[in-house]
Structure formats: C-alpha cells, structure tokens
C-alpha cells in the first residue's frame, strides 16, 4: 500500500510540474497541439492567442507574406525570463506554450499561437495578454513584410 501511495503522489507531482515550451517552426502551426501542451486536469481555463498575417495594403503595395528570423539560442532564455515574470504576476498560471513560425509565412496563416492554462480564467486571460505583449517586446524575433512588388521592409513592434 505504501509504495502505491508514493507512486501516486509521484505521478500527481509529475503531471503538475509547470511546463514552459517555446517552439520555432518552419511549418504550419497546430492550435490543437499548442492547447494540448498546456492542458491539465487541475485547470478550468485555457486562454489562447493566435497572431495571423493580415491582408494589407502599404503605400499602394499589397502584402503577400512575412519572412521571419530569430536569434534562436536567445529565444529560449528570453522566453524563460518571460515565463518567470508571468508566474511572479499570476502565480496560479500552470502551463505556458508558444509556437512561433520562422521563414516564409503567407498572408492569412498563423505566425504565432500561444496558450496558457490556469485553474480560473481571469489570471490566464491577463497572463496571455502580457505574454504576447512581452514576447513582441523582448524575444529576439524579426519579420519583414514582403509586397507584391517584390519589395520588402523590416517591421518594428510599436510596444
């Protein structure tokens, strides 16, 4: 009996270990996969944000897509700092997962999908807003907009 109980406790702790995952991907992002990465039986709420490329006209040129690049080794360390910051502000946050595209992303496709699980929804909703704002401000990723004229321009996040 004793060993079974110990094993049960071990499993419970395993499943509750906070997960923090960031993945850079050259392929289409699966929302379901990101959501599954944060699911937890102790959480009643999963907040998700998906950023996509808008069909846009810039100075009469049509945006056809975005080209992303990253300082990959530093993405992980900045993301860890961001997760620490999120947990300091909203200690109930359970798991955090971000998938971000690299390379060519066509208009209409998701460039980032992020999900945060929490026991109750308010913390997760505030945390997901902070997560996307801070990701844009601190994680070393860049995009250039590519136009139908073959021209391109590097973007700057305003926040």
């Amino acid at each position, binding site marked *: 009996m004793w060993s079974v109980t110990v094993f049960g406790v071990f499993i419970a702790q395993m499943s509750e270990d906070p997960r923090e995952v960031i993945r850079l991907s050259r392929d289409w992002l699966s929302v379901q996969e990101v959501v599954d990465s944060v699911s937890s039986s102790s959480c009643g709420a999963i907040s998700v944000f998906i950023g996509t490329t808008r069909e846009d006209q810039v100075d009469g040129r049509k945006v056809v897509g975005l080209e992303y690049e990253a300082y990959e080794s530093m993405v992980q360390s900045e993301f860890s700092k961001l997760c620490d910051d999120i947990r300091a502000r909203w200690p109930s946050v359970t798991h955090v997962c971000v998938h971000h595209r690299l390379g060519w992303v066509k208009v209409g496709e998701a460039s980032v999908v992020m999900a945060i699980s929490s026991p109750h929804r308010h913390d997760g909703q505030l945390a997901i807003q902070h997560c996307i704002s801070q990701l844009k401000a601190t994680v*070393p990723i860049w995009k250039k907009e590519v136009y139908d004229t073959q021209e391109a321009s590097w973007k700057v996040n305003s926040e």
Partner: protein
Amino acid sequence: MREQLLTLLLQVIVLYFAKSAELSGLKEEELVAVPTPISSEDLWGLLLQKHPRLVALQGQVVLAVHQQYVAIGDQLVTLADGDEVAVVPPLSGG
C-alpha cells in the same frame, strides 16, 4: 588599493540579424583584436568601422552579449575568446 585594468585582445563571433544582416551583407563574421573589457559603445564603433552602412541603425540598435541585451553606451562588457556578440535591430516578433 587600486586595481589595474588589464586590457586583453581577443576574437569574437558577431551575429547580424534582420536589417543589420542586410546592411553588413553578412549573417556572421569573426572580429579579431577586440579589447576586453570594452564599452558597448566602443564595440558598436568597431562594427561601424567595418560596415559603415550599419549607421542606418544608429540609435535603434542594441547588442546581445552572453544572451543579455546591452544598450549602446558606456556600460563595460567583458568578453572571452570565441564569445558571440549579436547585433539586435528593433524586434518585430509575434
């Protein structure tokens, strides 16, 4: 008790991203005879000397050393031989 400031010369790897890679024409290069410690301003000055077109980023760029952002200024950075220094134009992830 005064410490003597010892200046070493060493070699670092410079990584260029986004617009800085376009302006330098390079993703990565070796930079030799770099003194350490060195202010981030002087380090940026060395890069400008090699790639004058980088001046287009003046006032917007920061560096990253040991995966920490360092603003261009008089802050000293201590480098080891073979360290990576990244040129970080304004971010635009998300």
